[in-house]
């Protein structure tokens, strides 16, 4: 008999456990994976991890992200802008991956919520200042809000994504999720 308790996913034969088809575990899992997928997509395109034209870590993608951050006119210095333009997509990518796999899902949800709130604040400030700035959100993909300058559509989209993060934070990762491995206390036959 094998004891599948804390950290048991590392033990051969132990798994995150069976997932029942229930709203309580299924809905947070689906929401978490969709949110994670969107964040991975956003991070991937901003980093330009691989493009046919630019190879690995495409400079054009980096410049797009730099321009997008710069467009907020936050008064950041050159070095800080470059670090933000690099750290932001990495944050999205790591957070998205953690959400997809359900590892540290609540922590990742906190980061996702914080990012969305920061974006909402930034977009609102642009709208208040009457500035027309294109969104660098998903690189060339222009998901959901097309090519229009940042405005209500982007605010609503980010609010929905923040809401999704809040659901994961409150309801937990759902099932399946790697987080469940540490909670599982099950036995399995060798």
């Amino acid at each position, binding site marked *: 008999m094998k004891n599948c308790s804390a950290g048991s996913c590392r033990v051969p034969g132990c798994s995150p456990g069976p997932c029942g088809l229930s709203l309580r575990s299924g809905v947070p899992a689906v929401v978490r994976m969709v949110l994670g997928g969107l964040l991975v997509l956003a991070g991937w395109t901003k980093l330009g991890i691989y*493009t*046919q*034209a*630019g190879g690995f*870590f495409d*400079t*054009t993608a*980096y*410049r*797009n992200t*730099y*321009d997008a951050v*710069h*467009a907020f006119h936050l008064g950041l210095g*050159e*070095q800080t802008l*470059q*670090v*933000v*333009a*690099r*750290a*932001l*997509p*990495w*944050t999205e*990518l*790591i*957070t998205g991956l*953690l959400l997809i796999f359900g590892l*540290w899902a*609540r*922590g*990742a*949800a*906190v*980061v996702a919520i*914080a990012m969305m709130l920061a974006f909402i604040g930034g977009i609102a400030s642009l709208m208040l200042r009457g500035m*027309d700035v*294109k969104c660098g959100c998903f*690189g*060339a993909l222009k998901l959901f809000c097309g*090519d229009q300058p940042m405005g209500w559509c982007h605010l609503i989209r980010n609010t929905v994504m923040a809401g999704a993060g809040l659901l994961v*934070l409150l309801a937990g990762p759902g099932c399946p999720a790697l987080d469940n491995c540490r909670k599982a206390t099950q036995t399995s036959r060798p």
Partner: protein
Amino acid sequence: MIGRALVQGACIAAVALAIGTVHALMKPLRTWDSEAPKPRQGPVSPAPKPSLPGDGGAAPTAPHAQPSNQLSPPTPAAPHDERMITLARLKELMAGALPVQVVDAREPHEFAQGRIPGAINLPPSAFSGGIPEAVNQRMSRDLAAIVYCSGGNCDASKSVAMRLKDMGFSQVYVYEDGYTGWTMAGEAVEK
């Protein structure tokens, strides 16, 4: 539960920030401002070296010596040929013997309302999918490219100028007064 999530979130953010910082330091982005040529040193700029007794015969290097047979307008000693140009300089280049490529970095709807005659529309967003077709089909990397946007505090021209430099354009200028400066000076516009 929330406390633990906050700690996890802080760890995730710290790791991402560390990776981002290392990445930014390893592969810094060349920007228009960081690429700005340093002020040229004139003949008297270098600090005078105290002369030692008995070394009067040493021939100093001549930092300001330039070949006199240069044909192109930019000075050969400048480390980069991109720079901010005024309306007078723009008109001078446009009237010169060599053709120049004027690039309008504003958005297409602004471009449609009026532009400097002969300008090509290339907003920063046109580069998001790689090299725009207009660059390959209508521009030459061997000719000077002059980029402008609205004028004032607009950043699009500098962004596009750097993208053109990334793509191999060697002579890239930014017209600093932009379209506003052009129209304010009463110059002809194309619609």
